[in-house]
């Protein structure tokens, strides 16, 4: 796969520079360009910090700004950032109320954020929320917790809004951990991806194949099956999501569903909107009527073709946090 790129070593840095320059009203580079942070910090607010490997843009840097993240640390492609980046972000954005680290549940991310938290423990009050929303990696497949995938946006938006409203570190941690039971995502890939320094795709799909249950790192999914029409694909994703949400939440009439259709980078809006319409019909047929929607390319796997559905069953308070004002490069209302 061809990429708009100068050299693999400069790929991530040049992309981050473009993001900062395109949105200089909202974000700036932190010291030594180790992270991107809000241009205007809000003193006394908990610093909400996230990060992860590159290749998932606009996640996380595109969500830095008022009402969402204070800083985002970006690693190499599909590689967690290193502890020094995370420590630097804490040092520069903690205005006294402590730091909340939002970490997608990958061993590399968890370990690097953990090392950073250990290193900075003497200077900062720190709590960590691990995001686990992937329906494909539930307890049946893996004992170590689900992956964090597109549902990460929901976690970052809600925690960012709560922090903006003045929530304290402990309350944020509690809110964040409570979200993990409420959010499930399931993805399908129509094409693998190639890393910047390697023309070979991570998996090779024939013209009549697709991977179900993929994550966001170009890794193979749970199963490879024959390519199918959109209704069948959406049904398959939707059923996996329903199967992995706690029945008591699914049956709770007071919860407010949020439906997110997320493109993986190579799938265009015309297909994403089509998927949204079918997903909407699918969930409505199961008695779940989304009251909020988001369709677009938010959590990518480089230029992988495919998409994921995310269903979040929110309390009315949580829904209000979703609707709270946000001003970031990739999300604003």
């Amino acid at each position, binding site marked *: 796969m061809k990429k708009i790129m100068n050299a693999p070593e400069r790929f991530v840095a040049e992309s981050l520079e473009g993001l900062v320059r395109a949105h200089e009203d909202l974000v700036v580079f932190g010291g030594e360009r180790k992270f991107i942070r809000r241009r205007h910090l809000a003193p006394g607010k908990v610093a909400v910090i996230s990060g992860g490997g590159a290749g998932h843009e606009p996640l996380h840097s595109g969500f830095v700004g008022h009402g969402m993240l204070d800083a985002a640390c970006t690693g190499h492609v*599909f590689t967690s950032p290193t502890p020094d980046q995370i420590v630097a972000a804490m040092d520069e954005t903690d205005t006294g109320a402590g730091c909340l680290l939002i970490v997608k549940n990958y061993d590399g991310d968890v370990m690097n954020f953990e090392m950073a938290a250990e290193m900075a423990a003497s200077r900062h009050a720190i709590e960590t929320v691990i995001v686990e929303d992937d329906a494909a990696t539930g307890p049946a497949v893996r004992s*170590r917790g689900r992956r964090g995938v597109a549902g990460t946006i929901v976690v970052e938006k809600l925690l960012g809004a709560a922090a903006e409203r003045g929530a304290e570190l402990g309350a944020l941690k509690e809110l964040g951990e409570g979200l993990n039971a409420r959010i499930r995502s399931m993805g399908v890939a129509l094409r693998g991806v190639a890393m910047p320094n390697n023309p070979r795709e991570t998996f090779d799909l024939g013209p009549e194949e697709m991977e179900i249950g993929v994550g966001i790192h*170009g890794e193979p999914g749970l199963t490879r099956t024959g390519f199918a029409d959109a209704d069948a694909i959406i049904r398959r994703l939707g059923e996996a999501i329903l199967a992995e949400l706690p029945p008591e939440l699914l049956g709770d009439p007071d919860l407010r569903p949020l439906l997110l259709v997320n493109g993986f980078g190579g799938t265009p809006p015309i297909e994403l909107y089509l998927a949204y319409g079918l997903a909407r019909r699918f969930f409505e047929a199961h008695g779940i009527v989304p009251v909020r929607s988001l369709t677009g390319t938010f959590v990518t796997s480089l230029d992988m073709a495919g998409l994921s559905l995310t269903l979040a069953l929110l309390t009315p308070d949580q829904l209000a946090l979703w609707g709270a004002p946000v001003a970031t490069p990739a999300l604003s209302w």
Partner: protein
Amino acid sequence: MHLDATDLAALIGLCRAEIDRHGEHLSALDSAIGDGDHGANMRRGLEAVFAERDAIAALPLPAALERIGLVLVMNIGGAAGPLYGTLLMELGRGLGIADTPEAFAATLEHAIAAVARRGRSGPGDKTLLDVLYPVQAEVVRRSAPGRIAACARSAAHSTEAMQARRGRASFLGPRSIGHEDPGASSCALLTAAICGYFEEHRPS
């Protein structure tokens, strides 16, 4: 362990060359059951250490190992960074307390335990620990370097049959079976390179 600056610089160069030579292979292993970057990650780490090799080699061995660990952590990222970094940092710290051949085996055991804690993992999870544990057992037995290297290689190979319980490969469930773990593979390569040096320079 009595490595002088020349030994240390040579070992750094050897390890870096070994990883560079097999970088593509490591990434290919990682493509099959992970995200295809293990070769690039390890290269980046070893290049960073190599760039500092003179300063590192000038340090006492414990401090040198600790420094190597820190350089790895701050440059690799991903899973491999904290794991290899923890291993080297803990080795350095341990040898700082007691640096005798007997102490080395115990220190290695401690360092490997620290890696396991960092990764919340253990034997049979299909990770680099599945090379580290048998290597550690050979060290306790004071096996010859050649034997340790062979053991590392076969341990890496035996991860092929395992189903991954940690790292990205665990997302694949049973589909992870049938592929050698990339971290185990890099660990065996490094072990063999280091053992090769000892075999040549310190015939036991």
